[in-house]
Structure formats: C-alpha cells, structure tokens
C-alpha cells in the first residue's frame, strides 16, 4: 500500500509539472504576436486605397512554402496588412499537395492557395469545379497588364483565368566556379557543342566534369526530368516540346528518344559523371540539394540546376559572376538558339469574398512583387513586368529575371509540371530514376512513360 501511495504522488507531480509548463507557455504566447509589426516601417498607403478598408477581415493563405522562405512571404504582406487593416493567416506545409485536395473534399478550403504546378491547378479545377473560384475583374486586369500571355495561359483552364503567377524560376542554368574556371583557363560555353567540348577538355585534364543528383525523397527523379525537358527544347525545338508536353505526339516520339540520348551522352557517360560522388548509378542516390558541393570542393566542375539552387550553397560561398560559384545559361544548339526552361507557382482563390479578391489582386500587382523582392535575400523573382530588377538582391536572380524578360529567349514552362500528375509527378520521375539506377534503355524508359499516360 505504501508503494502505491508513492506512485500516485509521482503521477500527481508529473501532471502538476505539465500544468506549470502550460501556464508558463501561455504567458510567452502573448508577447510573441508583436514581432511581425516592426518590419513594416514608413509605407506609402496611397496605392492601397483601391482595396478599400478591410479592417477586421482575415484571409487565410495555404502554401507549400515553409520557413525560412515563408518568413519572407509574410514580410511581403506587411504593407497590405498595414494599409488595409486586413490580417493574413499564413500556413505553409511541405505536405501541401497531398493536404489541399483533402481539405477541399472535406469542405475546409483556405481562401487562397499557391499552386506550384499548372497541371495541379488543372486537375483541381476539374475535380472541384465549385470550389475553385475564377479570378475577379481586378485580378484579371492585373494579370493582363503585368504578365505575358504565356504566363496568363498557365493559370487559365478552359478559357477562364483561375490563377495568377506568383514567383518564377529559371532552370536552364549550369552552376560552375568562376574562380576555378579562370585558374584553369576554361571559357563559359555559348553553344551545346562548346559545352560538350568543354566537358571533354575537363575530362582530358584528368577531372570529372559533371556532378548530378536526383534523390529528393518521394519526388526522387525530378531533377532528371528537367534535364530531359531542357534538352528536348534544344534538340527538337519549342514547337515539338509543346506537342510533347500536351501529348499531341507520343511521349516516346523518335525526337524525344534522340533528346534522351543526348542527355545520356552526359549523364550516362562514365568519364563525365559523377564527380566526387561515384559512378553513373550514384546520380540516383545523391541528394539533389547536396550534389553540387563538388564544385567548391574541387571534385567536379559543372552542375545543371535552377536559380533557386543558390539556397543550398554553403553560406560562406560568394555567389557572383566573379565569385566562388555562379551559373551560366545552358547553351542551345547555336548561340542564337536560346530556349529557356523555367517554372513558378500560381495564386488561386477558393472564396469570392471581396477581401480575398483584394489580396489576390495585390499579389498579382507590381507593388507586391517589389515588396517581396526587397525582403528576399535570394532564390526568388517574378515574371511580373512591373518588377524593379534592381530590388533583387542576388545576382543570379537578377540574371534570371534578365533572361526571362529578354525577348531573344524562348521561355517554356517546366513540362513535367504541366503533364497529368500520374506522369509528371509519377512515372516520369520513377522511370528516369530507373534510367540512371538500373541502366534502363532510352527506348524502354520512354515507352513505359508513354504507356502510363492516362487515356482521356
């Protein structure tokens, strides 16, 4: 009986301790709220008069962008919150793509969501026609005024504009080390042949030129799909690319087989890959966001990745044209042939309340793009033509914006993001992984993806 009493008192003590934690935490909670308000100082509110007074209104935003990038997102809403009085409830989740359909099905949609792929938007509109709300008038006029028709198209389903572009990225980049290039006397190539010559030259000098990695958790394989898309744009051209993405030609069209062969000339060439990481098969297991570290380490020279790869470099490295690492444009067949692969996310609304439309309009305006640029260190720019490029803080983002708005470059949106989910976020990834990991042949890989294309 004695021991029983002791036990009971222990449990009481444990729950008492729990209560104490509770009480202490409640008090810290209250002073945590004031943090966000200091960032917005001296804002010109005249541009916000069009949105009216939204005092006391709350707009919930659901995205796949989490901290630390989410902090920049929240900071960019500060002017809107300050001037209109509305409150933005931001929620980011890495499980966004799985959770959003669950919420829509259950009748618990957010007011606004940032959709990372046009293909996903299309399937949302098809599956939840009553829940996804077409963009309002002010949003449509913003979209037409500040974005090129191509970008407006990505957010349009069946002739109706649902989503406006938020951020953009450019994927046709090859990261390299300018200082190492200068020391070795290598030149930045301007055509595909020069790129291959450079690779051969580096290999002849006794190094392994390329490093690559496509491991990315459950999305393993996606960096390889970008390789294929980039090369299809270069060997077959943008028109064939569009037909291929829209499945007007089969996925395993001879031109695509040829393109995959060209990718294989680099990624499946033992003398070209995989610097510092192993042989060809190591590409499948190397984490994509770590695979380029061979460049500062001196074990490889070239790594094809988007502008947002900058976030993965060690903080001590200087990203600049004459710095430790930088990126050059992945060249086309000739110096004048300049296809550009990129991506972006799109804002779509699930409510037609006036404050939601006002916020949607704000997100599609140059005011927001500039506010976002001025609070973002690196890894973000927008296709918004009203964006002041000098506000972008990273040289690679400035270069990306420059290429994106330069009419001599032909922009195409990431193909796998536009294909049906079963392919673009399914077999395309897994088959490309098999292509690298188990040396599956070009023809077999493309035929398997073609066979998995949903029939409709």
């Amino acid at each position, binding site marked *: 009986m004695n021991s029983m009493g002791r036990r009971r008192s222990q449990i009481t003590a444990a729950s008492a301790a729990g209560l104490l934690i509770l009480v202490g935490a409640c008090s810290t909670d209250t002073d945590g709220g004031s943090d966000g308000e200091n960032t917005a100082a001296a804002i010109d509110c005249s541009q916000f008069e069009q949105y009216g007074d939204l005092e006391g209104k709350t707009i919930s935003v659901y995205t796949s962008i989490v*901290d630390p990038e989410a902090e920049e997102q929240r900071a960019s809403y500060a002017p809107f919150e300050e001037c209109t009085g509305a409150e933005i409830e931001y929620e980011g989740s890495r499980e966004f793509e799985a959770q959003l359909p669950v919420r829509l099905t259950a009748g618990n949609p957010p007011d606004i969501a940032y959709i990372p792929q046009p293909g996903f938007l299309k399937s949302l509109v098809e599956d939840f026609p009553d829940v996804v709300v077409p963009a309002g008038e002010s949003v449509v006029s913003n979209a037409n005024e500040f974005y090129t028709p191509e970008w407006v198209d990505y957010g349009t389903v069946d002739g109706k504009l649902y989503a406006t572009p938020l951020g953009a990225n450019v994927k046709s980049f090859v990261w390299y080390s300018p200082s190492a290039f200068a020391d070795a006397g290598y030149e930045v190539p301007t055509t595909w042949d020069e790129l291959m010559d450079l690779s051969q030259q580096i290999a002849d000098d006794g190094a392994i030129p390329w490093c690559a990695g496509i491991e990315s958790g459950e999305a393993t394989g996606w960096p390889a799909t970008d390789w294929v898309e980039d090369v299809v744009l270069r060997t077959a051209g943008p028109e064939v690319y569009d037909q291929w993405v829209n499945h007007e030609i089969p996925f395993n069209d001879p031109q695509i087989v040829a393109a995959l062969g060209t990718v294989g000339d680099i990624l499946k060439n033992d003398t070209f890959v995989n610097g510092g990481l192993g042989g060809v098969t190591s590409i499948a297991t190397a984490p994509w966001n770590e695979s380029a570290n061979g460049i500062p380490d001196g074990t490889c020279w070239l790594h094809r990745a988007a502008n947002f790869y900058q976030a993965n470099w060690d903080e001590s490295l200087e990203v600049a044209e004459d710095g430790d690492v930088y990126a050059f444009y992945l060249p086309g067949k000739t110096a004048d042939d300049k296809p550009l692969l990129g991506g972006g996310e799109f804002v779509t609304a699930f409510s037609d309340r006036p404050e939601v439309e006002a916020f949607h309009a704000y997100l599609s305006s140059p005011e927001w793009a500039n506010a976002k640029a001025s609070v973002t260190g690196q890894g973000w720019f927008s296709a918004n033509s009203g964006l002041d490029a000098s506000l972008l803080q990273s040289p690679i983002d400035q270069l990306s914006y420059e290429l994106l708005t330069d009419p001599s470059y032909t922009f195409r949106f990431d193909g796998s993001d536009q294909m049906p989910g079963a392919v673009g976020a399914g077999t395309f990834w897994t088959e490309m992984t098999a292509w690298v990991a188990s040396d599956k042949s070009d023809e077999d890989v493309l035929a398997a993806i073609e066979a998995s294309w949903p029939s409709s």
Partner: protein
Amino acid sequence: MTAAIPSTTLVDSGASTAKARTGRLGRMDQRAGMARARLARPWTSLLAIVLAVLWTIPTFGLLLTSFRPRQEIRTSGWWTFLQNPATTLDNYTEVLFGSGTQFSTFFVNSVVITIPAVVIPISLALLAAYAFAWIDFKGRNILFVAVFALQVVPIQVTLIPLLTQYVQWGLAGSFWTIWLSHSIFALPLAIFLLHNFMKDIPPSLVEAARVDGAGHVTIFFRVLLPLLTPAIASFAIFQFLWVWNDLLVALTFAGGSPDVAPLTVRVAELAGTRGAQWHVLSAGAFIAMIVPLIVFLLLQRFFVRGLLAGSVKG
C-alpha cells in the same frame, strides 16, 4: 542455446535464492526472479549488451551530428568526429529561434494536444471497461467484440469523413478536432486492455465489497482504481508517445497553422521548402525527443508490468 552453457556458481546461487523465496512472492516477482537469473548468464548478458549498443549507435550518431557544423556534416560522417572535433550550437539556435513562430509555441501546442488526448480516452475507457467486466447486461459480449473489432479500421480511411464532420460542426482548425480524433482512435485498444486487466482482479474482491454494501461507484473508485494504476500508467505512456509523435492526425485536422500545430509539424517543415536546411533536422529531432524520453524514463516500470498484465489474457 543457453542450455549448452555450463552453469556457473553464480547462476546456481541466483536460481536457488529465487526458488527459496517463491513461497512469499507473487507470480510476477517469481517471473522477474527467473528472468534475473537467466540474464545473469554471461553470454546472455553479452548478447543483451551488444544489442543495446547496436540499437543505440544510430541515436548516438544523431546526437553527435546535431552538434556538428553544416560543412562537417556534409563532408564527413559523425564517426570521424574525434579526428576533427568541431562542435557548434548553431543547429539548436536555428531550430529554437530560426522560425517566424516561436519554437515554444509549438511545444506548448504539443502539450495542450497531448494531455487531453491521453486523459479523455483513459477516463472513458475505464468506465467502459468496468461496465464490460463487472456489470452483467444483455449483449455484453457481442458489444465488447464489436468495440474491439473497431481496431481493425485503419486511421487513414477515416480522415476525410471525420474532417468533413468537423467542418460541419464548425470545429475545424481547433484543438477539439485533434483531441476527439485521438480519443476515437485510442478507445478500442484502451477498452480492451483495461477490460482484460479488470477481469484479472479476483471476483471475490469485488463481491466482498458488494456484500459490504458498496455500489458501482464505490467499487470503481475504492477497490478497482488503486489496483489499476500500473495498467493506466502503461496505457498512458502508450497513448502519450503515440500522440506526441503523431504528425498525420495533427496535419490533417489542425493543419499547420501556428495556433494549433504541434512540434511534429514544425520538425517536418524544418528542412525548408526545398530541403536546403537539412542540417538542422538532427537538432530538431533531439529537441522533440526530450519530453517522451523523460516521460518514458519516469514511468517505465509501470510500462513493462502493465503491458504484460493486460494483454496476455483474453
């Protein structure tokens, strides 16, 4: 395998003392004594130690990694730590203070979620288990089997219907959704375990109390509850660990909004949008581990005993 080993004097004395005391000790202690005697054999001990070390190595590596700078984690394994003993607290600073929302907020949310999600199912299950064990009513066995059979329902198939229901009730996004969900998912097992434990208590004890004029309430609180402490504690640990470590339920019902999201949601997001912050994950994992570790260490003696007590009898 152990039979082949020649018995040493140590084992003999251990076994004989255990035997000598059998008369005075209960079945549990007898079993414990035998286990103690068996564990005293050197080979078994060695095996146990090897297993324990093997099982601890990954955790130890994680702990070491959490103190290493990003550059070191990237270029070398934790086992090379002694050759290059660079340590940093940056990872912990980043986890604790690097987010827009205070880490303590998530911590508090976890506590606020966990305590009711443990207390509610145990309170309900105790009452239900008592009814199933000691109140004779028609259809008792069928009902008991039905409740137990609910364990078969996988949690995943209930997510969307439950969420739809919560939205209709206007509960979405509040703590209630998580408390209710965890209670729903825990009840079948809780009722089963506690029922079996209650059945283990000699009927004469309950009958004696009845003869003395005790009603159900008195029997429940004065006779059964004190005897049930190990079972309750063991199930409480079970449920505590499950709720504390849960991500799926919290993410689906509460979402990631900082008002209600628990620690696990924060840890899942730690790596950043494109995974650039992977080096802080080990530190995050350790911070999230501390509370369950403390709870387990404090209550583990109930855990082992209660687990055996409730589960082996049908």
